[in-house]
């Protein structure tokens, strides 16, 4: 387990800010203690410093996971955000999309969100903006990228995609193995 290098930090924060903007600092300085990111086996873990201390006792090959895994760095040093980070993205999300109950299941299976399934969308969403997807009951379902701006969403036909799927909570069942 090691701290992130500057480049890695930069890459990761860039990715995160797509979804939560400047609220990243809220992730680091929290009222209940300071938290940090650490890298282990190419995965980025988010944990409080108390846990960090205790986790250092565990040898590298035996350590499986610490705190919450946010995502992983690929071989070419690109950062992929995982569904396990949803709990931290959702409260700070800047742009949100609500999905109708009928197409909730479809999104949970990994499909993109179509105009016909779109319930609500935050105003002024830019194109290709990172968004967090909610159900109508305000339960976070996952996140993705807006395919159209809010204005365009109103005009476009029902069968076109409005949100590209990136991660959803159905992955806890579908790809349990790849979470670690």
């Amino acid at each position, binding site marked *: 387990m090691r701290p992130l290098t500057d480049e890695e930090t930069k890459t990761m924060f860039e990715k995160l800010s797509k979804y939560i903007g400047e609220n990243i600092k809220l992730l680091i300085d929290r009222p209940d203690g300071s938290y940090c990111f650490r890298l282990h086996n190419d995965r980025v873990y988010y*944990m*409080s410093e*108390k*846990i960090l201390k*205790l*986790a250092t*006792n*565990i*040898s590298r090959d*035996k*350590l*499986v*996971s*610490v*705190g*919450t*895994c946010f995502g992983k760095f690929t071989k070419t040093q690109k950062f992929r955000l995982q569904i*396990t980070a949803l*709990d931290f993205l959702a409260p700070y999300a800047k742009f949100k999309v609500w999905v109708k109950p009928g197409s*909730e299941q479809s999104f*949970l299976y990994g499909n993109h969100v179509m105009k016909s399934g779109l319930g609500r969308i935050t105003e002024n969403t830019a194109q290709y903006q990172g968004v967090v997807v909610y*159900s109508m*009951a305000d*339960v*976070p*379902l996952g996140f993705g990228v807006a395919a159209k701006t809010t204005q365009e969403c109103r005009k476009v036909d029902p069968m076109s995609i409005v949100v590209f799927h990136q991660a959803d*909570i*159905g992955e*806890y*069942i579908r790809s*349990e*193995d790849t*979470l*670690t």
Partner: protein
Amino acid sequence: MGRKLDPTIKVKRGPGRKARKQKGAETELSKFLVDDDGPKKLSSRSRKRAVKRAQVTKEPKQEEKPKKGFTDENSKWLKPAPRKRKIEQSEEDEDSDSQWEEDDDEEGFDKKEMEEEEEEDDDDMVDDYGADEGDEQDSDGEELLPIERAARKQKKQTSKKPESDDDDDDDDDDDEEKDDLKEDGEEEEDTVQANIDETEQFKLPAAAERAKEGLLAMDLQTIHQRIRDNVDVLSHFSEKREEGKERSEYLSLLRSDLCTYYSYNEFLISKLMDLFPVSELIDFLEANEIQRPVTIRTNTLKTRRRDLAQALINRGVNLDPLGKWSKVGLVIYDSSVPIGATPEYLSGQYMLQGASSFLPVMALSPQEGESVLDMSAAPGGKTTYMAQLMRNTGMIVANDANADRLKSVVGNIHRLGVTNAVICNYDGRQFPKVMGGFDRVLLDAPCSGTGVISKDPGVKTGKDEADILRSAHLQKELILSAIDSVNADSPTGGYLVYCTCSIMVEENEWVVDYALKKRNVKLVPTGLDFGKEGFIRFKERRFHPSLKLSRRFYPHSQNMDGFFVAKLKKLSNAIPSAPRERDEEESSKTETAASSEQIQNPESKQQKPNSTPEKSNMGQKQKLKPKKSETPIITKKTGVKAENKKPDGAKKAKIAKLDGETSKKNEKPDKMQKVKELNGDSTKEVVMEKKEGSQFEKKNEMKRKNLLKNNTNRMGKNKFRKLKSMVGQ
């Protein structure tokens, strides 16, 4: 080519072919009240019936004549009771038709047969009771519906058949089956007539018959009946036993029947018979055949039970709160959606967890801000429950030895939003070395799984003595490591909960008892007010009386998986091998070097092996043996006995030194002698002789061996076998 089925187009359909419609009271009544056939339309059946009715009124008189052979003029008024005759007639019908032929006067043979058939048909399907039949029935004082008459006919026929079969066969078991059948048949008739014959006895088949049974496939019904009868006899043994038959014979028959009926192996059934009284045993076995209800646990980090229940009900799930003892549990009766895939599940609002798995965490009750270790965490249900009780504060270390199963722990932890967990992949026995000083530790030890047979029927046949002992051995090592990982001086904690999903005493009370002897711990109440108390004694074993504070749960009484929970509090961080003997340990250590000295204190031997590697070998061997107990007869196990006779040479000497933990002073002189002899020559016989002298010595040997080694070096299996062969076992 068919029409294309378009689901959006709904075709209205009228009543089907078989739909019945009520036309209204008047029309219904008119059917009953109006009798004449004229205006009414008759269906084909009713037409047939009418014809028969007409014939019957004509026929009976004529038929009776030829049957009884009446030829005088009394036939018109002289009418014999039809019921019995008709039954006899039907029997005679089957036997021979010649009688009819002979009696036949006017009517043709065929016609008679037809008439007989018709009459028989009449018996079976008649709606109205023919006039004369009705009269005669009344005169007999008994009304028998035609169906009842037919049933009686049948009964008599069937009761005839087996007798004829038996006459042909010579086999003994046929006789036995016949006995059973007769008993069954007799029992049926008895109950029908409301005369229960109390001298009806459950007959124990002789050994020869039972041996033959193995070849013949007995059907399950018979076996089940036999089990029931057997249990009945055993419950009221003095009244219902057969003369000359021992209880053990009944028990052995019951054992083999249970094995066949429920598909267990002999070993497991014997163990279960030791654990439960016979009637409870049947309940337990039956409970293992059906699944326990599905239960879920609300994740209070994300939602409340009320809200979750509401959301699930909206999805079409039928559920209820689990019970008074749990504030987060819900039991699912049925569901129209898969419970493991609802959006609520995926967003981490609940977790599928067996009801019995709630209990150890409730007993442990971790507080906020504590550091907790879960030694066998997969698949993560208990870990996440602990995290929610701690409100994501403090720290949890979730460990499991199996890397594949750890993936599910990771998944569950992330899904349920647990942030204070560290997941690692160690062997639990390494734990105090890696990290120690936890406030609380939960050890859900890997076990034989005899409590979850309903989930995994393979346990029924797959487990035997060696498996249980192996599990017990591992559990003992784990519990010691767990105890060593607890910080006794913790301000808020110092607790360990040991639990298994097994009902075997070897894996439960024995292990806890071992821990009590080996470490400074004591049992405390679990806080669970239901469930059965743990055993204080079992067969020849005696456990510490505080074992009463542990709890056992059974599928047939609490309707949850078989479980055992014990809560221990650590009193002191010092590690003695056994609590009382700390003072003597140091003195005994100095004596280990000298081989021929007798040690005053029986208990102190345990430390010695640490000093020399040789001893460690012995210790390891002894590890494998069952643990010492206060009193008797662990040696009865064959494996154990073998180990007892191992020693040769220096090892013997060590054993001699390490003699005894028990406070029995009378053993000392024996030991003295033994030691001297051992030192003199290294023959086993001497040791044997001594051993013959007292059972205690054997026990002591075993105990010594047990105490010899701490967990660190373990002799591999090969070495053990080598030693065994050396010793000549």
